């Protein structure tokens, strides 16, 4: 528990009503979407960079851990206060500061909800592409800190491709600026890229300057059904090899389809063992041609049925099938371990085959879906913790899957980050010297290890 004196200082900085040590609040700011729970000692909701600077200076002097928190929709425990201390809730910083239509940029505070910005810029004919499935509730600060991705990233890139500059409060309480609002800029180190994906361990982001692009005129959504997962995976590699980059290239395997078949508004025949959701966008006249070329490539690979949406409503129905997968997985088994490995796109068929083999060998269902166009697979290891041995099998499966991913030149996480969930596996992917280099940066910037301690690196690594 923190001393009364500390609470009084915090109240002085942000105002009494924005500091809480009530048990109810400590419980409500203890978790994220991993469902791990660690109560903070105090919940603080600052209003601006100056207040955050004062909080961090105090936390440094008193050596109190500080855990930045957006919407807590993270999948790897990034915002969970595993050592107690201060839960630093950033949702009051929620203003869109400007949308500059002359330069196609937006300046926002980190607590702005992703979808809120997207709606605002689309109203003036602009577009902010990164679209994590959590976009209706995740914050842009959280997106930047995790470098979030989404279906549209095949064509448009991930969050880091849209961040031009930031205002950041350093772990020691200084307010700094990285990058700027120009499309180019090479003065000094690229601190912007360093901050993107730092999972709140190197600074608290208080302003973000984002690049916008013109909103595409039209889009076309197709649901292509294959008789085997292998066919679908090969179609992905072939489309990419054919030098076509669709907007999205999502896939779902047979188990994922089984979970949603019943509730879907669309008819998905039993013969379909895997599907791809392919969307193309751009000028209306070009869409037909793009779609036709994609179908030419896919058709020989075992397509059993294709649906092309002719209205926004039908396109929405197709997407609904994809979005309902993750939540419906409980039908397979009550507990899931979800990983988001990413492999070079040409290796997708190999990776899928390897996962199928691991699932067979360990006799536990593994459901695959995700952003195939990026080589990013959401691997869901479905277990029942009540059954003896399941937990161990899941551990084995995770290790085997990571090992294969790395062997194919991939990475353990495409977009969810490391947090606490993947920290134990980091040495599988990064060598000793690389980890030491990263830790040296963290130590130099945060000598007292007060900002989001216990994340990315295990203490004894």
């Amino acid at each position, binding site marked *: 528990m923190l001393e009364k004196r500390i609470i009084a200082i915090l109240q002085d900085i942000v105002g009494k009503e924005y500091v809480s040590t*009530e*048990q*109810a*609040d400590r*419980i*409500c*700011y*203890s*978790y*994220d*979407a*991993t*469902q791990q*729970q660690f109560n903070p000692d105090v919940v603080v909701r600052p209003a601006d960079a100056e207040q955050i600077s004062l909080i961090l200076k105090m936390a440094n002097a008193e050596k109190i851990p500080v855990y930045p928190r957006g*919407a*807590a*929709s993270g999948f790897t425990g990034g915002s969970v206060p595993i050592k107690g201390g201060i839960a630093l809730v950033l*949702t*009051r910083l929620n203003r869109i500061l400007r949308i500059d239509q002359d330069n196609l940029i937006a300046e926002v505070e980190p607590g702005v*909800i992703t*979808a809120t910005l997207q709606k605002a810029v689309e109203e003036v004919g602009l577009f902010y592409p990164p679209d994590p499935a*959590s976009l*209706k*509730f*995740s914050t842009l600060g959280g997106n930047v800190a995790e470098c979030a991705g989404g279906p549209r990233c095949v064509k448009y890139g991930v969050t880091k491709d849209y961040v031009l500059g930031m205002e950041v409060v350093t772990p020691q309480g200084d307010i700094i600026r990285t990058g700027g609002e120009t499309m180019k800029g090479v003065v000094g180190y690229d601190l912007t890229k360093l901050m993107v994906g730092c999972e709140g361990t190197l600074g608290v982001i208080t302003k973000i300057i984002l690049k916008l692009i013109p909103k595409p005129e039209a889009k076309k959504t197709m649901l292509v059904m294959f008789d085997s997962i292998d066919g679908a995976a090969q179609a992905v590699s072939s489309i990419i090899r054919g030098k076509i980059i669709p907007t999205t290239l999502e896939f779902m395997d047979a188990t994922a389809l089984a979970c949603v078949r019943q509730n879907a508004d669309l008819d998905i025949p039993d013969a379909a063992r895997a599907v791809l959701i392919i969307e193309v966008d751009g000028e209306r006249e070009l869409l037909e041609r793009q779609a036709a070329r994609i179908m030419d490539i896919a058709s020989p690979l075992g397509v059993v049925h294709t649906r092309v949406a002719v209205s926004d409503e039908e396109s929405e129905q197709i997407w609904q099938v994809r979005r*309902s997968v*993750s*939540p*419906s997985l*409980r039908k397979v088994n009550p507990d899931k371990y979800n990983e988001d490995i990413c492999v070079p796109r040409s290796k997708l068929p190999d990776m899928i085959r390897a996962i199928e083999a691991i699932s067979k060998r360990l006799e536990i269902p593994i459901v695959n879906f995700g952003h195939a166009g990026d080589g990013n697979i959401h691997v869901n290891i479905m277990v029942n913790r009540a059954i003896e041995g399941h937990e161990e099998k899941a551990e084995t499966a995770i290790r085997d899957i990571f090992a294969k991913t790395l062997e194919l030149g991939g990475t353990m996480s495409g977009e969810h980050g490391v947090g606490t969930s993947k920290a134990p596996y980091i040495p599988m992917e990064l060598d000793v010297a690389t980890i030491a280099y990263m830790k040296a940066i963290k130590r130099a910037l945060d000598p007292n290890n007060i900002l989001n301690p216990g994340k990315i690196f295990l203490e004894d690594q």
Partner: protein
Amino acid sequence: MSKHQEIEAYRQQLRECVKCGTCRAHCPVFKEVQSEAVVARGKISLAQALLDGKIDLDRHLLSDISQCLACGRCVKDCPNQVPTDEIILALRRRIGREKGLTLFGRGVSTVLQRPWLMNLLTRLGRMFSWLAFRKVPQGSGLRLRFPAPYISRDRTIPAIAPQAFRQSHPEFIAGDPDKPLVTFFTGCMINYMLPEIGDSVLAALQSLGANILIPKDQGCCGLPALCAGDGAGAARLADRNLDALTAHKADVIITACASCHSGLTKHFRSLGPDHAQLADKVMDIHEFLLQQGFVEKLEQLPRRNNPQPVAYHVPCHLRQAGLKEAPRQLLAALPSVRLVEMKNADSCCGLGGTFSVYHYDISKKLGALKAEGIRDSEAEVVATACPGCIMQLQDTLNHAGLPQQVCHVLEMVAADLKNAEPQ
């Protein structure tokens, strides 16, 4: 005897919350308050902590649990359909039992359980309302002259009706013998405050030739007591309505109040097989009229020049029951109506049972969101399907100084039926 489930019975459903945070995008209270403790994910965590003995029913927790409109958005949009609204009501019942009801909650329950008291109070209220209230200068409604417990001074409320609806109508109104026997469950708002809605319902039903029963012994649907945490009171009301409504073998039981509909369906289904059986007979009036082919009937009425622009507000309780489009379909078929869209048509009016009494400030903010949508629309009239929403929306428009009128969809239906009659 009916019986509510204890909070313990929800243990498994509590576990099904995967803490994804989706509810943060949908809870109207969270949008205003921005504290995790008021969103479904937070409330579920608090319920779990309570069951695990990690938190006590302290003042702070009570306040968090009270911040819910029971609008059901969190349930509908939750990937695992965790019944947060039911869980919150179960928590409130536990609180009511262990900590006692608040003064207001006690008042609500006492009065609504005793129709004679309600009748007496409304009679007194009518006699003395000039003393307690003054008329709102612009707009419609009354405002308190001096402070009173639990009613915010700047809240406006409708006048009390000169005579309660059920007192001014016979218990049975015969129609065409071949036509169905319909029981009309009026609810308190229609009975005591807005009887003209009841008259409109009768007009619509009579135009179908229905035989209408308005049981004298019916009471409050129980939702206000339930929201106030008075489980026992709500259960008593339910039993009493069960008796009153099953005494006659009606084909269908009609409600014209979205909240009463929820009280007699969703709430009844949680009370045991007898209540559930009754719930199966309950239909919202709009749903019933659609089923009876009313749209075709309305479309045959002579068209009118310059139909009035009307927007429709979706009551949360119809949204939750999957009936939000039925009133819109009726409106669209009316000869004197030009249905127009408004922004935030789907957003909550902010009443939420007893919510607006305890949290009038938040309630007003939700109202302001509605006012914005109404202001920016072409509508001259806002029609809706719930007397509670009507009261709240009128209060909202009074505050915003907007000229639009609020009414029930059935009032517009009845007016057009009347217009079409040979003069």
